[in-house]
């Protein structure tokens, strides 16, 4: 326990805490409150009905941030009670003030600009609110929006200030960590924008998305909350069962068959005495991995085309009637499996080949001397020694059993309608819905369903593997 400063002791005495507030606890508390503050910005606190469209929707402080001047007219028409909004705004400002002074345990350079900003914001914001309520003038709404941006900035700075303070205390100096943080910035920005920013978008699954305004955020907030109606609709159609079945069954087959083929190929290639030929074969089988699925689509087209495809020509020469492959769903599961194996076996076998090459040859020689045949050596020595690698590579695949290889299912069938029942996987369903421009609440619910199940699967499989052999787990 660190020695408490006088301020801390004062706070302890004021709040008569049993456990003294150490700096560690303080910062955790402050961070928690900061997070809560940001959350309160999004709470739907004001509810009113838009008379013209007869839809219910709610406002939060953040809504004002992205609203347009049209909102004013609605405010008047719907006899809005802005008092809660006002209270929340004032609460935020005062809260911020308190936060700032808690943050500054000793007169800290951060306290001065933050407090100044907060006080200014308080003053101007309070006056604007009063004007707004009385006059309902459009321009003032813009001004109010500006001030809320300001408050958001202040909160953000406080948040950052807390982190920096912690860095300063924990590392005893900024310099080296400043450089390291600088290196992290591009990655962090990318992750925030491309990975974390879309996450609230999963809420789209619970809304009936309507394009009412110019702004995407505005559309989002104005769309009605329909809760689970999208899901109910999705699961009531035969689509849901079909896409789930397709995704899961294909992935299971790909996983099992892929594993068998990759490992068999790896073992076989490792057995070839002529190393030059072995390398040649390995190179050849690796090539399909480099071709994109569109190119593979061309290759399958060259084979399966009704008039000109090689397979039909061959059948004709045998006297069998040509088959319209692109209209026959029954053939396509096999075609997909073949295509998947063709493309990925070479790639998958490389790791196993390298692993086998790293095996100590003595154990094989000893087994041979003891009279074990090739097959026995393979099943009793090679395979068990490959198991850790196979497990590791399979976990990630099992976790991704709900995510399909969109490229293959999109390009190979060439958009043929009858093939949809066997090629429609979740990703393809979502993809087509987005391009089709229908109510995106439906594919959003499918996407959410996919993300959640995928997450549960990864966590479960990792947990199971961690129990069995901790070395092979992901984390």
């Amino acid at each position, binding site marked *: 326990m660190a020695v408490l400063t006088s301020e801390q002791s004062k706070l302890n005495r004021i709040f008569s805490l049993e456990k003294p507030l150490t700096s560690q606890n303080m910062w955790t508390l402050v961070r928690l409150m900061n997070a809560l503050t940001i959350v309160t910005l999004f709470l739907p606190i004001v509810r009113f009905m838009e008379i013209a469209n007869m839809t219910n929707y709610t406002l939060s402080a953040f809504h004002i941030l992205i609203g347009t001047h049209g909102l004013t007219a609605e405010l008047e028409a719907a006899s809005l009670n802005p008092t809660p909004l006002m209270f929340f705004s004032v609460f935020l400002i005062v809260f911020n003030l308190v936060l700032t002074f808690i943050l500054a345990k000793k007169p800290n350079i951060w306290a001065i600009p933050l407090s100044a900003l907060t006080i200014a914001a308080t003053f101007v914001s309070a006056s604007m609110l009063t004007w707004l309520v009385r006059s309902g003038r459009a321009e003032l709404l813009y001004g109010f929006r500006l001030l809320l941006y300001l408050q958001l900035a202040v909160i953000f700075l406080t948040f950052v200030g807390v982190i920096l303070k912690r860095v300063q205390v924990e590392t005893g100096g900024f310099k080296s960590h400043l450089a390291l943080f600088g290196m992290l910035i591009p990655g962090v920005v990318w992750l925030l924008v*491309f990975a974390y920013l879309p996450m609230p978008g999963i809420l789209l699954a619970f809304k009936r998305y309507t394009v009412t305004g110019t702004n995407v955020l505005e559309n989002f907030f104005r769309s009605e909350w329909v809760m689970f109606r999208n899901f109910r609709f999705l699961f009531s159609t035969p689509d849901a069962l079909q896409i789930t079945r397709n995704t899961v069954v294909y992935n299971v087959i790909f996983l099992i068959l892929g594993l068998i083929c990759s490992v068999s190929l790896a073992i076989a290639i490792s057995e070839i005495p002529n190393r030059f030929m072995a390398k040649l074969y390995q190179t050849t089988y690796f090539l399909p991995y480099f071709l994109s699925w569109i190119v593979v689509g061309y290759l399958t087209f060259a084979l399966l085309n009704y008039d000109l495809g090689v397979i039909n020509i061959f059948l004709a020469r045998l006297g069998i009637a040509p088959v319209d492959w692109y209209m026959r769903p029954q053939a396509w599961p096999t075609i997909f499996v073949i295509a998947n194996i063709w493309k990925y076996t070479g790639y998958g076998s490389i790791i196993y080949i390298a692993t086998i090459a790293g095996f100590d040859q003595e154990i094989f020689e000893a087994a041979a001397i003891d009279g074990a045949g090739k097959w026995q050596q393979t099943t009793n020595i090679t395979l068990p020694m490959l198991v850790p690698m196979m497990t590791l590579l399979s976990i990630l695949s099992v976790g991704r059993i709900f995510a399909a290889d969109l490229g293959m299912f999109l390009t190979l069938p060439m958009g043929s309608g009858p093939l949809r029942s066997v090629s429609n996987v979740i990703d393809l369903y979502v993809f087509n819905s987005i391009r089709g421009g229908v109510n995106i609440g439906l594919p959003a619910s499918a996407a959410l369903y996919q993300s959640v199940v995928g997450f549960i699967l990864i966590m479960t499989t990792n947990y199971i593997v961690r129990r069995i052999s901790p070395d092979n787990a992901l984390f």
Partner: protein
Amino acid sequence: MDNATASDLIKLAKRKKSRRWKNPNRLSGKANIILNVIFILMTIACILPIVIVISVSFSTEATILREGYGVLPKNFSLDTFRFVLRDPSVIISAYSVTIVTTVIGTLFCLITVALFAYPLSRPDFKFRTEVTFFMFFTMLFNGGLVSYYIMMTGFLGLRNNILAMILPYSFNAFWVIVMRTFYKNQVPDSIIESARTDGAGEWRTLIQIVLPISLPGLATIALFTALAIWNEFINCLLFIQRQDLRNLQTMIYQALTSARMLRDIVASGMGSSDAISEVRNLPNETFRMALSVITIGPIVLVYPFFQRFFIKGLTIGSIKG
């Protein structure tokens, strides 16, 4: 074996080294032949579709329409290619878009990943666990395609923008993990310590000392990222409607799936003065295959040289990873 003396073992080792040593554990001649035959058949099965496509592109359109595709060129002719290269503007624009996105995307990815992985590999960086979790969580759970689409178009406004094909590839959590392991294993602490005592800051240590050692890892990342961006078409299909911003893959995808698109591409080289009847004589089937040959061509040519590095990168990354 138990009774082998030291001299026996030495003799055995010497025999192994001699050129005529035949590993008693190697495949018998018969099994070897069978295995090789199977492999050759598999090789044919692998390569055959590609050969067919190439053959068709070198054939005459009329013969193809009459007899269908085949393994060998029918009525060998360079007409289709001559036709394609008469006005290759569509192909050139698609190629340039692809090349630009690949180069820039790979560069961005390399920079971002190499920078991001370095602090994670330093044991004295106090926030390793937090940052690693921050990054790793995105591998487990994402917002889904719909949110991604809304974010790209509504928030970032990247519709019909070439960045839509570059930015999504600018960071990859998986490569960060690989690179972090690479830094930790390949760069001995002593080097960094001596750099630190010589007064080098973190940036200097990274750029002048760590990066040169980690070039193999970076090369692997560059290769795989470049391949991924070159082959990608989903982002293009979702976000790009302008014809001149199309990716190479998207262009040939549209040529394959839509006859109208194919005609647009084929007829792009013709002036407005050409009669409509000429359009009917355009080589559609061979043109399709010629397009795909033009796409595959560079990859198949470059592949023998680069595949070695791919394989090396895969094995180093995964075994140690």
